[in-house]
């Protein structure tokens, strides 16, 4: 196998791959060859390895004695909060459901309540005839006569220089209309 020579910059660039064993065999051989020849890179590799080894020798921290107890305490409160939220949520859901049911019931009863509460006043039928004065003096005025009206009533007697007020009524509709009628 022919091993290509590499320079120090390339060695340092790819050092992590070499250290973590991520290189293919031939590339790994290049790194090893470079390490064998280059004192500076060999020192670099030695420093990293021994430094990391010292770090790994550092005493490990242990959690304090009450760590688990405290955690359990917090989890108890976590569960408690969750239960309270669920109760609140289910209470709110019940309230909303109740409110919707009440609204529906109310809507269902409203027409009946309306029927019960509404008072119907029976009025005697109103009948009127067009006064003779209207017929004689004011009517028919083609522009004002409403031929659809069933009744015509003179609301104000004609005065010299003033308009009269005439009211029309339409039987069966409860609708009326009023118009000023100019004097002749």
């Amino acid at each position: 196998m022919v091993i290509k020579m590499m320079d120090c910059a390339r060695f340092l660039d790819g050092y992590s791959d070499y250290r973590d064993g991520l290189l293919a065999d031939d590339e790994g051989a290049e790194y090893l060859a470079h390490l064998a020849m280059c004192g500076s890179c060999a020192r670099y590799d030695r420093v990293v390895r021994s430094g990391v080894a010292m770090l790994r020798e550092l005493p490990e921290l242990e959690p304090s004695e009450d760590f688990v107890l405290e955690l359990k305490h917090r989890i108890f409160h976590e569960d408690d909060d969750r239960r309270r939220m669920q109760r609140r949520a289910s209470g709110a859901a019940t309230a909303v459901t109740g409110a919707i049911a009440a609204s529906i019931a109310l809507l269902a009863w409203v027409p009946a309540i309306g029927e019960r509460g509404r008072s119907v006043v029976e009025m005697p039928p109103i009948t009127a005839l067009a006064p003779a004065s209207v017929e004689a003096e004011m009517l028919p005025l083609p522009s004002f006569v409403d031929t659809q009206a069933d009744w015509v009533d003179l609301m104000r007697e004609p005065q010299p220089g003033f308009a009269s007020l005439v009211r029309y009524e339409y039987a069966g509709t409860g609708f009326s209309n009023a118009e000023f009628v100019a004097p002749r």
Partner: protein
Amino acid sequence: MSDIFALRAISRENEAQPGRPLAELDDSGLVARFLEGEKRAFTELVGRYQARLLNFVYRTTGDRERAEDLVQETFIRVYRHLHRFDQSKKFSTWVYTIASNLAKNELRNRSRNPLVLFQTIRKNHESDSKPLEWEDNTYRPDDLFRKRHLRALVESAVDQLPEHHRTVFILREMEGKTYEEIAEITSCNLGTVKSRLNRARNNFAQVIAPLLD
């Protein structure tokens, strides 16, 4: 299609392995058992990860007490969100991601609040000035002192690394995580992980080289 669902159900049942002692289950088995309502499975997970996470967070933040608080918070978040955890993923990666994010937030808050930073430095200084403990009688006092001094210097070399380099360095060198896991934990792509790790190793070597020769 129904076969796929049936297969998934079977594999999930196998994961939970009802009746098998919790200590014999792997992490995914414990997660499955916890989700089935067995609370002791969570305690087992805590037992497996509490020391590892404490050391990881301590090495990242440099504050022991705060590290313990952050690990507590990590487990609370795990407990709260375990039902949303994607069980096709590795539990250890997930739990390290949570701890790493909390440590990162801690460092960010500390840099914004000089008082917190000062308190941390003071606390560490106080612990540094404690008298030497004679942990090993086979060493002579000067050897012990030298060894302890070197360890402290190596530790401080890690502290000197920029935060994003330090996290990657610790995850790889101390926690033995793969590049893919580190990428997931730190939310970076593989290229970034590689370049950060290479730079971190380079900086680390430069700081400690004069001490080790």
